[in-house]
């Protein structure tokens, strides 16, 4: 986008509703997405703590709800996974921070389609309401789980396709679950179109692709993945809905008999659902983690006071991960009954993802190497991200080999693996971004002291919760077990379950520190009077905190250099903003 000859200032609309509720301002929408994720993550945490409690004390009486049944456990598990994957891990890093900072970081006044952006958010909001409504309908496991479905976040057919006969929550609860995901997929498609168009069309003068911050690259590539992945999920969801309501048989074969009742379907394939679901589901892992990688790169460079190590390699690695990520869904299906020959291709493609992932890791360490590292809370979480990404990534190399997957598939090893990488690593990315950008978004700082306590407990806590899961998975503990007393070899793992549950409660409690810090910071936090408190180089640090309605008040910046020019020899300051004119002069304050 060329700079206007005369600044044209777009004022924010007047009136609370147009300004804060049905806003078309990407910044407000970003905050709306973030708050939606914040509400969702605490629901998800509470569900997980109830599950952890049930695993070590199955007969305990919960206040109001009484003793939890196995089907209630499975319903909580289904909702925990679904809410966390969609409404937290897909929402906060991409739709939340991406919405807020992508336009500013490329020097644009807003997203390319502001009304579509508003629609994406409100459809996502509707999706969350429909999802939560599943708790309140009839026909479910009851108690604390209400009407929620029990088929897991993967909703494998035929379990999810044949209605209440297969189990509690598989009637209305399952239908709402599918409707919610269809809405969510639609919203994500709209969001993805917006991100892609904005990145390609609205970059300010001088902001060539290879001068974009790695955050922008990550959001851009994530949007491409979302466009390709969510389209398939939407289609699959509609087919599943038709199987349930219109008598079609896409996913249900002939001859099924459930508790002596013949199921009147014929000609469908359970494996078709798995292929479609994972064609979306595997890219979804990268949709959750790529923005965290972008944020981590951005923060590591800023607080090492060093240019990112191997910028181009980082960009290529993002593309390689995305491209490979689209072609490896079959590694979720090695033991599914799929052709064993295709396992070879899926396996080698999956192992290949280890290569760009390793490139990113080594480049992050390379960025730290020779730096002047400032351990702000944001930096601590970014370093935590790297550590968790390494740990969670390496356990993926076990599961990527069909031979090794034979014993490990569908055990706690898998649960430990994906929580490490797609769960907590991505969450660490969100935390890092929050501590880093909060002063820009709200004009106030989060408390660094509370932030650091939050970091230490969380970092130790997540290793204590999820590392042992790998070990009990190797021992053979199947996942998605509501109860560990029926299968006898599980008895000796009881102490490990107790350890993980205690760790989960401590770590969960530490998140209240974050919640307190967040709301305290909004109203009482130390004022961020300096628009560039971290002495950073990208465009968001050249505008007021919070930025005005159209970000640059009509004076669109011109970009002269790459995004990570720290400690340039000869420069007066140890950072050279992207907007600093190319005169060899020392960098100005902003």
């Amino acid at each position: 986008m060329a700079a206007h000859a005369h600044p044209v200032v777009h004022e924010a609309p007047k009136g609370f509703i147009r300004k804060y509720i049905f806003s078309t301002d990407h910044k407000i929408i970003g905050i709306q997405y973030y708050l939606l994720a914040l509400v969702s993550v605490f629901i998800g945490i509470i569900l997980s703590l109830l599950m952890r409690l049930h695993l070590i004390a199955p007969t305990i009486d919960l206040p109001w709800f009484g003793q939890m049944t196995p089907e209630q456990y499975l319903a909580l598990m289904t909702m925990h996974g679904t809410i966390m994957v969609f409404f937290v891990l897909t929402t906060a890093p991409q739709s939340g921070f991406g919405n807020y900072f992508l336009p500013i970081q490329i020097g644009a006044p807003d997203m390319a389609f502001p009304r579509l952006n508003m629609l994406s958010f409100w459809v996502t909001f509707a999706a969350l309401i429909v999802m939560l409504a599943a708790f309140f309908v009839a026909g479910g496991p009851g108690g604390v789980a209400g009407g929620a479905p029990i088929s897991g976040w993967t909703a494998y057919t035929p379990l999810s396709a044949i209605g209440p006969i297969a189990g509690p929550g598989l009637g209305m609860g399952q239908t709402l679950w599918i409707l919610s995901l269809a809405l969510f997929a639609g919203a994500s498609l709209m969001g993805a179109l917006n991100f892609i168009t904005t990145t390609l069309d609205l970059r300010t003068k001088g902001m060539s692709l290879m001068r974009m911050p790695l955050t922008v690259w990550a959001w851009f590539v994530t949007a491409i993945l979302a466009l390709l992945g969510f389209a398939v999920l939407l289609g699959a969801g509609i087919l599943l809905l038709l199987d349930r309501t219109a008598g079609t048989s896409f996913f249900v074969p002939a001859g099924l008999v459930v508790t002596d009742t013949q199921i009147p379907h014929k000609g469908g394939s359970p494996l078709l659902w798995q292929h479609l679901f994972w064609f979306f589901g595997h890219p979804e892992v990268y949709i959750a983690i790529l923005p965290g990688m972008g944020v981590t790169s951005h923060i590591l460079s800023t607080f090492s006071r060093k240019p990112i190590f191997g910028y181009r390699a980082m960009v290529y690695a993002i593309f390689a991960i995305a491209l490979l990520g689209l072609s490896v869904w079959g590694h979720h299906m090695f033991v599914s009954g799929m052709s064993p020959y295709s396992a070879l291709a899926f396996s080698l493609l999956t192992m290949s993802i280890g290569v760009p992932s390793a490139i990113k890791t080594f480049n992050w360490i390379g960025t730290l190497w020779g730096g002047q590292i400032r351990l702000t809370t944001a930096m601590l979480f970014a370093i935590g991200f790297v550590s968790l990404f390494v740990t969670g990534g390496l356990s993926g190399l076990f599961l990527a080999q069909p031979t090794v997957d034979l014993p490990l598939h569908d055990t706690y090893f898998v649960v430990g693996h994906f929580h490490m990488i797609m769960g907590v690593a991505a969450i660490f990315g969100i935390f890092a971004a929050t501590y880093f950008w909060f002063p820009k978004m709200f004009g106030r700082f989060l408390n660094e002291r509370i932030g650091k306590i939050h970091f230490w407990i969380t970092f130790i806590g997540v290793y204590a919760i999820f590392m042992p899961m790998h070990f009990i998975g190797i021992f053979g503990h199947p996942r998605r077990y509501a109860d560990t007393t029926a299968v006898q070899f599980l008895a000796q793992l009881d102490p490990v379950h107790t350890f993980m549950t205690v760790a989960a409660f401590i770590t969960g409690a530490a998140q209240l520190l974050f919640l307190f810090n967040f709301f305290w910071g909004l109203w009482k936090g130390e004022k961020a009077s300096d628009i560039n408190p971290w002495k950073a180089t990208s465009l968001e640090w050249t505008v007021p905190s919070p930025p005005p309605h159209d970000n640059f008040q009509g004076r669109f910046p011109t970009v002269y250099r790459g995004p990570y020019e720290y400690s340039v020899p000869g420069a007066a300051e140890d950072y050279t903003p992207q907007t600093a004119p190319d005169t060899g002069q020392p960098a100005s304050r902003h």
Partner: protein
Amino acid sequence: MTTKQAGVGSGLAAAALAFLLILITFSTIYIFVKRIWWFPEAITPLGADVDAQFVRTLVITGIVFFLAQLGLGFAIVRYRDRGRRAVYSHGNNKLEILWTTATAIMFLGLGIAAERAWARFHFQGASPGALQIEVVGQQFQWNFRYPGPDGVFGRTDPALINDGAGNFLGLDTSDPAAQDDLVVPQLAIPVNREVELILRAKDVTHSFFVRELRFKQDTVPGLTVRVHFTATKTGKYEIACAELCGLGHHRMRSDLFVLPPDEYENWLRQQAETE
């Protein structure tokens, strides 16, 4: 918040974070090396192959884990903010090529090494003399069908399924081959003889999992999947369901008995009589 404040305590925090990374790295490696939680002993040649590949993977990922976590810890301490200028560098192409090539060779080599055991398990069918047993999953129990003395599985029809009357598989007794079929809730096999399992499901997807056999295989409605193995050690082993199949998933268990040949024949006779 100024950069000066942000740097306060960096030395201590850096040391603590590095210490934590070292602690995590060494305790993880310790637990793996001491095999505090480990697979039970494998009872098939496939199991030995799986274990060997697991250990190969563990060694390679262990090296990367060790280098990456300790490299991270070292950098945090060594390059903590001392109020100087950071090194100005945009990277090093030689290093990029080095670690790209090294990881590509390691990871792809590992992936290729894993294929042989997989191929032996899945690409070659069972030999003609293998003992065939049908495994049928249903909510929430396992059914095992032996073809009986005639060696032929009789006809089944979903329309004839009647759990209440004990006809779990819908055996059609009008088929002579079906009359000697034996359907039992437990699995017994003779030691040192190849067994072929024919896996099916009646209602939803389940997964047949025996830790000591080192494999699991989903049983999928509408599909028939065959696997084969030879158990070389007698004993009683647990069968668990490994695919979420409904509210009783956690209690969908059974037993696998690997018996000496004569005991196996006795077991078969007893089961036929009690039926």
